[in-house]
């Protein structure tokens, strides 16, 4: 296989890895934010919940930052087109996300109940809204987004903000919220005790069931929606722009890859293979197992979208032939090669020291431990 083609595929897979990292790690913290007010009823309980992810949320959040940087570097045309097209949605995402670090750091700085109550709401919003937006954005990608390019690749988005929040997109948004609540709840279970653990356990089950249902409905919906297929385009191994291809859309196109390669059905199957036993594990209180099964489910969910759309990444609903694909929106071979080198060195390092950080902070977070620890949130 030619190197450039291989690199494009490697970065398509790496994008998936980054999105899974983002969904699992940041999603977990956001899930914790979303359920904070429910699993913690008193101030001390809430502080316990916050301190469960307290030492890790900053490191986890870098998955989001790295996601932005990596899309910029490896898929510049997608970075440019998607983020400007989804403008108001992106603002919603950024504005709620920038509240989150402050929620963690500032909430417990003052004793006032009103102050802390306000930050608890802020943490809820900054957990719930970004996950809803992530999911809704992916939902829009599946449906296609109205944009086209000028001769010099200036992208023009022609849809409205309201159109981005259509029923299918909201369904995808809720799926991502449910998954994040599941991950957050299993994390709270594994480091929390007593009533907190019990409330989290119930939430993990409900959100797991919700995620199963939403994923199933979403899958059926996708199989009946209009997908896209590449009729003709330049050789995938060459440098190209999205202006020299022909793309058509028809119902069921998003199933073509699965039909062509039945082994790919294993990808959506792994979402079920994660969630179904995950529910049982959560019910039995095996929180670590339940968490890891949730991570597997995330791989299944994100992998399903990627597999269904491949080679499309951001189809255009208004000008299908301007759709962005793995072949026409990647960086140059030289850039991808350098980026691959850096990723190969640093990604294992990141995973190693992240695990070490979790190991150092292992064990239950109790009310007692927080009250005697001057550094706690």
């Amino acid at each position, binding site marked *: 296989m030619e190197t450039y083609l291989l690199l494009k595929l490697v970065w398509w897979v790496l994008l998936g890895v980054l999105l899974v990292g983002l969904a699992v790690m940041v999603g977990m913290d956001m899930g914790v934010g979303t359920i904070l007010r429910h699993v913690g009823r008193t101030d001390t309980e809430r502080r316990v919940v916050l*301190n469960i992810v307290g030492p890790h949320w900053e490191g986890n959040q870098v998955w989001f930052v790295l996601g932005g940087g990596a899309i910029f570097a490896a898929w510049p045309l997608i970075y440019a087109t998607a983020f*400007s097209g989804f403008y108001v949605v992106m603002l919603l995402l*950024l504005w709620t996300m920038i509240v989150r670090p402050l929620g963690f750091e500032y909430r417990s700085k003052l004793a006032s109940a009103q102050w802390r109550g306000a930050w608890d709401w802020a943490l809820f919003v900054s957990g719930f809204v970004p996950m809803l937006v992530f999911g809704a954005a992916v939902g829009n990608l599946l449906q296609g987004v109205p944009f086209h390019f000028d001769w*010099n690749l*200036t992208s023009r988005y022609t849809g409205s903000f309201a159109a981005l929040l259509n029923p299918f997109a909201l369904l995808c948004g809720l799926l991502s919220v449910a998954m994040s609540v599941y991950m957050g709840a299993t994390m709270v279970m594994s480091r929390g005790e007593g009533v907190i653990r019990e409330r989290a356990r119930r939430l993990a089950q409900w959100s797991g069931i919700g995620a199963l249902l939403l994923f199933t409905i979403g899958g059926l919906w996708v199989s009946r929606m209009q997908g896209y297929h590449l009729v003709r385009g330049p050789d995938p191994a060459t440098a190209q722009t999205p202006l020299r291809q022909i793309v058509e859309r028809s119902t069921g196109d998003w199933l073509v890859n699965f039909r062509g390669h039945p082994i790919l059905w294993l990808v959506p199957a792994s979402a079920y293979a994660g969630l179904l036993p995950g529910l049982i594990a959560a019910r039995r209180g095996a929180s670590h197992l339940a968490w890891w099964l949730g991570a597997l489910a995330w791989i299944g969910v994100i992998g399903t979208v990627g597999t269904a759309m491949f080679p499309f990444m951001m189809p255009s609903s208004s000008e299908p032939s301007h759709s962005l694909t793995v072949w026409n929106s990647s960086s140059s071979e030289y850039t991808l090669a350098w980026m691959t080198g850096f990723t190969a060195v640093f990604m294992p390092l990141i995973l190693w020291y992240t695990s070490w950080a979790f190991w150092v902070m292992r064990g239950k977070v109790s009310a007692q431990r927080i009250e005697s620890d001057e550094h706690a949130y």
Partner: protein
Amino acid sequence: MIDNTVVELSRWQFAATALYHFLFVPLTLGLTFLLAAMETVYVTTGRDIYRRMAQFWGRLFLINFALGVATGLTMEFQFGTNWSFYSSFVGDTFGAPLAIEGLMAFFMESTFVGLMVFGWERMSKAQHLIVTYLVALGSNLSAVWILVANGFMQDPQGARFNPLTMRMELTNFSDLIFNADAQSKFVHTSIAGYVTAAMFVGGISAFYMLKNRHMELARRSFRMAALFGVLATAGVITLGDALGFIGGQAQPTKLAAMEALWKTEPAPVAFNVVAAPSQSERANLWQIQVPAGLSLLVTHSLDGTVPGADELERQAAGRIRNGIPAVVALKRLAQDPSDAQAMAQFRAHEKDLGYGFLVQRYAPDQDASKSTPEAILEAARDTIPQVAPVFWSFRIMVGLGLLMLGYFILAVIYTLRNEVERQRGFLRLALWSIPVPFIACEMGWLVAEVGRQPWTIYQILPTWMSASTHSVAYMVFSLTGFVVLYSIFIAIEMYLMVRAVRAGPETDGPDAAGPQRRATVAQAAPASAGRLASRWEV
């Protein structure tokens, strides 16, 4: 068609959010190293006061860090949301350092900052010290990569425009990283951060000494800040000079604006100490000069000359005329990539492609091929940035830098003579000078970024073409949102910071001092009070 109002609003939004983010970055860069230094003394000498210092300043560090991280999120995504043409045009080159920053630096900084805060009781002293150093290293490595990215905007090295993919593609990775502008700017900027941290720690320590509170901690912190600060300020000035030297060669238009040099003069060129530059008159309304000063400063010789705005505009007009055929050929290539004649024409003119883009703003229908002589003249004038803001930002930055050097020299003398506490006037000055380094840093950003105009990528891509194609309403909405949110945030941050400072090292913390903590303080206090700080220890 590109809407000028949208471009202007996008510029305001980027400037506002970047300047705001940059309020928190320098302090993070410097304070991490001061924290590491304090903890090093604690680990090597075992003296508890240094642990308390590291923890107290660490608390203030976090209040600042939270907002730095929060507003950094905006920066990582704003290129895509608001500068989409820029992003697709240079993402191949400019995106790489941003992604590597995340991989190599920001992950490390953020993962270990959690351990630094929560891990005091869960790691050995040596492990915790290493973690603190990794936070410092991570934050400074972040700055390296961000400034490599910025260096490419200032002096685009290591990339070439590919007419078939319509973008700047990376051709030489080491040219991108070892860009002289990026390297000297990294050192200049990170050391400016050390100065900021030293002024911050010195100022708050001075506050305690004025109030006669936490004397032990304040004295030692002040001494550390003074020594750190005097070295850093000397470094920042040296590197600033080097940056001026390098930047002046790479960006003559910025240099002309920094020095308000409208006309090219024979060597030796005089230096304008202060002046009233008028953009419309293309002259200074008045000025105070030092003869031969500019030749000495910029070329480090008496017979070097410096091109003024008049000559630079003439050169630009020539390059615009040469760039127009490049844009025309590019348009034909977009229609038919196999058009050999268009490719040949493009190759012949490609070095001035950016100037061809620039003139489109003034050409009828924004079409370069319809450029009139007036349009070319206007675009050529446009290549000189707004002189007054660049000239004055530069002077304020340099002036404040020199004042801080004087301040730190005095601080070192007083602290080494053990007489800081008696210098009440100096302590008050130290307290009220805390904003000074922040202002200097912001001014430095303005010189770098306003001085680069009208380009986002110098001589390659005009700012005017770089913005996303949003509506004015969207831009008003987002700009308003950012201003409102950020104003609330800074009010909260300042309130918490002031409150934490007033509460001081002993009483701050989520629930004031817990029982265990009071015990530590009670044990530490008599022991340290009896110890007289010797002259040479920090």
